[in-house]
């Protein structure tokens, strides 16, 4: 990304952080404000979308025209388990799907605090098993996501490994949130 656009996005994020810090906002309003950030993403041309029930998990297919039929990236959205949705991640996932030439399945996993850990991991695993039941081969499935979705992308593979089950073919973790103790030193140094 060019520096100018990157700076504009950082500025937008800063404005959003200031607005979201209002202590009078209820969670639903905070969620709405976070979903509205989805407008910042640009539509990727040549991608169509379809809602689907992925074994009980609401999900959205992002389907690039002429994409590979056999491979899929299972994608979990950002938002710390509490905010954002498959709607706010639609365009970003559409870009990823188009760049890879494969479909993306964006999950609308259950959010906290209504549904706490491990509801999110359970939903990702449910959707993964649904993909297998649809005939996708496990080595043609990439486990992907960003922010807490990056965590979920990795933890899916860990859960499968620990159960002795076949693993997905790849993990794509973008800006993953891995350390819930928040001991990462960049939490202090990258404050501006």
């Amino acid at each position, binding site marked *: 990304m060019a520096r100018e656009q990157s700076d504009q996005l950082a500025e937008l994020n800063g404005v959003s952080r200031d607005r979201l810090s209002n202590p009078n906002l209820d969670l639903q309003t905070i969620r709405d404000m976070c979903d509205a950030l989805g*407008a910042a993403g640009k539509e990727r041309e040549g991608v169509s979308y379809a809602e689907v029930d992925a074994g009980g998990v609401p999900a959205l297919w992002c389907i690039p025209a002429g994409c590979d039929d056999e491979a899929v990236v299972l994608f979990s959205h950002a938002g710390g388990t509490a905010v954002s949705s498959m709607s706010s991640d639609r365009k970003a996932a559409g870009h990823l799907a188009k760049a890879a030439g494969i479909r993306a399945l964006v999950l609308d996993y259950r959010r906290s605090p209504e549904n706490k850990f491990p509801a999110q991991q359970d939903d990702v695993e449910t959707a993964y098993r649904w993909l297998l039941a649809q005939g996708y081969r496990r080595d043609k499935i990439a486990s992907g996501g960003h922010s807490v979705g990056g965590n979920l992308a990795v933890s899916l593979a860990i859960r499968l490994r620990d159960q002795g089950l076949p693993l997905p073919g790849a993990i794509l973790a973008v800006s993953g949130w891995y350390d819930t103790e928040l001991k990462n030193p960049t939490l202090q140094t990258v404050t501006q």
Partner: protein
Amino acid sequence: MTSTQAVEFANFFADLSQRSANPTFDLSTIRDIVETMHVATKEPEGVTYAEVDAGGVEALWCIPTGSDPLRVLLHNHMGGSVITSMYSDRKAAAHIAKAAGIRSLVLNFRRSPEHKYPAQVEDVETAYRWLLGHGYRPENIASVGHSIGGYLAVALAQRLRDRGEALPGAILSISPWCDPTMSGESIEGNADKDKLLSRPLLEFFRSCFLDGTGVELTDPQVNLLNSDLSGLPPIAVYYGEDELLASEDAEFGRRAEGAGNEVTVTQVDAGQHSFIIGAGWVPEVDQAIAEMGVWLRSTLGLDAAAA
């Protein structure tokens, strides 16, 4: 009989209205809350999207697979000129585009109160001229919109008519905001049934839209019921049975027909204001959108061209 989905949809609007009416919220927050109404619209399959600069107006193409290459729907979103956007209207516009088999250009016209009348009408005209500049013929363009966008769809044709220019081939005006004086009987009569609009909300919209412009609420430029409706292309008017604007929309249809135009008026049973947001979910809405598609194809000569 009213479908359960129509009832759920009305309740969804009621919840949205209640949440956005918090008096401590600033306009940005209200906009963000109402923007989420799009979750009521199901993603239409087989449609791709492309953002475009339509002569300086932000816009979004909704392109159904296999759609006609020559015709276009110029789509204007709801929100009283103040709220919602091309993003919140994307899926609803795409459902109409898919029903018609015609691509839709959804405009993100400038909003009030930052940009008051006539900024919105000017943006629609700019985008229309941009379409002409890209080779679309006037008779192959349908001027479409809902709520304030339903007004804009008509106002565009009136501006072009007044200058003696070629008119678009059709006007599809859904739940149009025709009378900013709010004199229609359903403003009071449907107050309990309309779960989205209220008199205070409409007063807020018209204040943002017109205050300080010197344009009166009765001015024919902004009040379709006071305007010259002669010499317009075929018009389809759709409105919901339960909305505040039902009576003025029916009156608009009568006057447009009385002015000598080819007019079809459809009241959607148990329909809320801007019911098209329930597309893909509410059967009554899907039925209305299917009819709109047939009317658009017929009026823009698509079925004749294919025959």
